[in-house]
């Protein structure tokens, strides 16, 4: 069951990374003209429509990782990693926990600034919030993957 949850957590995180990265690139680097090029089409999508899907995926992923899997890590894998005196991975995992909690707390503001019709004066805030959440999601994914390579949950 733990392995299945971990796989689901990883897959959902990958989907979330795809959505938030797409939205971030579309917000920071919008396509100026329609073009057939892959990156132009990638940037030309209506990124505001991603907002609710990103929030739903983030909350479900946080529940699976934070509520269902985190206690198993805390009393198992983390103690092993600490006994191996691998301090940096423990610290990185703690940072992941805090960065993702901050991103979770930012979701209400993120929803507020991305709701339609989009307010032009809020464009910078939208870009910044999206970048922070994207950074937290990428950081969480990489650190989680790295930690799982050191000591998985079993």
């Amino acid at each position: 069951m733990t392995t299945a949850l971990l796989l689901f957590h990883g897959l959902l995180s990958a989907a979330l990374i795809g959505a938030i990265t797409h939205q971030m690139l579309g917000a920071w680097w919008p396509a100026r003209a329609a073009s057939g090029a892959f990156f132009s089409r990638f940037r030309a999508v209506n990124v505001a429509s991603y907002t609710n899907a990103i929030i739903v995926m983030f909350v479900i992923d946080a529940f699976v990782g934070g509520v269902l899997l985190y206690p198993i890590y805390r009393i198992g894998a983390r103690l092993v990693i600490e006994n191996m005196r691998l301090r940096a991975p423990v610290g990185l995992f703690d940072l992941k926990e805090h960065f993702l909690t901050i991103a979770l707390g930012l979701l209400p503001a993120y929803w507020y600034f991305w709701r339609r019709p989009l307010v032009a004066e809020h464009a910078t805030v939208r870009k910044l919030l999206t970048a922070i959440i994207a950074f937290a999601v990428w950081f969480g994914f990489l650190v989680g993957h790295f930690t799982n390579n050191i000591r998985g949950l079993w």
Partner: protein
Amino acid sequence: MVMNLSRALPVFSAAFVVLYLAATHFNLALFTYHPAQGELEFLTRPPKGGAPAMYWYGWIATAAVGACVVAAISLAVPDRLAARVWPGWTPIIAVVVMLAFVYLLRGWFLPSIGLILK
């Protein structure tokens, strides 16, 4: 009415990240979870039976309750005054809090960095 209430959301987010930092640093957990025993206890409690206690859920709860209070108070501010506050403070506060966490957790990384630089 809904639009008026929603203007408290950025305030909630900014307050949440600051209160989360405070709750973590001062260990102000609204409840403690003992994963080995599967027990919840009100407020911050020491670990039980040699197994670690988890305060993270309690810190989130503390920050969420505090942020709700701050957001509710912010609704009392007239729209005219609230519109003067730059909305960019929310992401800036979040970045500052993230950097504060890096600083607070530096003890986990400095020995490794020292080894790399040696």
